[in-house]
C-alpha cells in the first residue's frame, strides 16, 4: 500500500517546482504517477485530467484530490490536496511578508517591471491554448468574441457567473 507520506511527497514536490500554474503540472504528474511510480494507469490518468478540467476549482487541486482518493480514500485525498497547496501557501506567505519592500527596492522593482510583459505573454498564450483545447466549433470563437465585447461594454453591470452559466446554456443548445 502506498504510504501517506509518499503521496504527500509527490504532490508537495510538484507543487514546489512547477511554474506556470496547474495546467503545467499535468505532464509532470503524468511522468511521476504513470511512468516512474506506476501508481495510476494511463487511461485512468487521462480520465482524471478530463474530469479536473470540467469541474470547479484549480485543476491542480482537482487532480490531487482525485489521485489521493483513488489510491488511499478520503484521507488520501486530503493528504494529496494539502501536499499540492502547501508549497504555494508557504512561498507566497514568505513573499507577502517582505512584499512591502518590493516596490521600495530598486532592483526588485526593476525585475518585476521587466517580467510584466512576459506575464502578459503567458496570459495571452493561455487564452489561445484554452480556446484551442476547449472550443469545439468555429462559431464558438465568434461567441467568445461577442461575450468579450459585452463584458467590455457593460463592465461591472454584467454578472460574470451568469455569463458563464449563459455560455454553458449556449453550449447545451448549440454544440453537437
Amino acid at each position: 500500500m502506498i504510504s501517506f507520506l509518499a503521496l504527500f511527497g509527490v504532490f508537495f514536490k510538484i507543487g514546489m517546482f512547477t511554474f506556470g500554474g496547474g495546467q503545467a503540472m499535468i505532464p509532470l504528474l503524468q511522468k511521476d504517477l504513470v511512468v516512474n511510480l506506476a501508481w495510476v494507469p494511463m487511461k485512468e490518468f487521462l480520465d482524471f485530467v478530463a474530469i479536473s478540467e470540467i469541474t470547479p476549482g484549480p485543476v491542480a487541486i482537482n487532480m490531487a484530490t482525485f489521485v489521493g482518493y483513488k489510491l488511499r480514500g478520503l484521507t488520501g485525498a486530503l493528504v494529496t490536496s494539502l501536499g499540492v497547496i502547501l508549497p504555494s501557501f508557504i512561498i507566497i506567505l514568505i513573499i507577502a511578508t517582505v512584499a512591502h519592500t518590493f516596490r521600495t527596492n530598486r532592483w526588485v522593482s526593476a525585475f518585476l517591471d521587466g517580467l510584466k510583459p512576459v506575464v502578459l505573454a503567458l496570459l495571452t498564450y493561455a487564452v489561445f491554448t484554452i480556446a484551442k483545447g476547449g472550443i469545439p466549433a468555429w462559431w464558438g470563437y465568434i461567441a467568445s468574441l461577442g461575450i468579450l465585447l459585452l463584458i467590455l461594454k457593460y463592465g461591472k453591470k454584467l454578472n460574470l457567473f451568469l455569463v458563464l452559466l449563459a455560455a454553458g446554456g449556449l453550449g447545451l443548445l448549440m454544440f453537437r
Partner: protein
Amino acid sequence: MEPKKLITYTAGHASVRKQLLLFWIFFIIGTFTIGGGYAMILMMKRYLVEQYHWLKDEEFYDMLAISQVTPGPIAVNMATFVGYTQGGVLGSVLATLGVSIPAVAVIIVIALFFPDFKDNVWVQRFFAGVIVGVVAQIATIVLDLGKRQKWTIVSAVVCAAALGILFFVHQVSPIWLILGGGLVGITIEVFKPHKPAAAKRAS
C-alpha cells in the same frame, strides 16, 4: 524619484468580519469557476478591486504577476497573497481554504457518486459552452493588462519574444521566460542614470 509603494498592508488590523468575507469571496469564486485558475482572475478583480476596493488595479496586477511567476496553482497563490495582505495569516489560511475546499469536495462527490460524469454528452456540451465564456473573461484581463503596461520598445520586444517562444518553441518552462524578462528589467535599471546618487556627487 519617489519609490512606488504599491502593495499596501492592512494585515494585523483586519476584522474577523473581513477575514470571513475573504473566505466567502474565494469560496464563491472556487465554487462557480470552471476551467482552472486563469478563469478566476477576472472574478477576483471584480470582487477585490471593483466591489470592495481593497486593492488598487496596480496592486492587483502586481499580485497577479507574482502569483504567476511563483510555483504552484495561480488560484492558490492569489488567494494566499490577497488573504495575507487583507487579513493577516488567518486571512491567508481562510482565503486559501475558500478557493480549495470546493475543488476537493466536488471531486470526492464525483468519485463517490458520478464516476461516468465526463462521458455524459450534456456535461460535455455545457462545459464546451462555459469555456467560450472563460476564454472571453481571460481575454478581458489580457486587454486590461495590455492597456496598463508601460509600452516601450524594450517591453514590446520582450512581450513579442515571449509570445514567439511560447507559440513556436514547445515545452519551454515559463520560468526561463520570467527570468529573462526580469533580467532585461534589471539590465535597463543598471544603465539608467540614478538621479539621487548623481545629485549627491554633483554637490
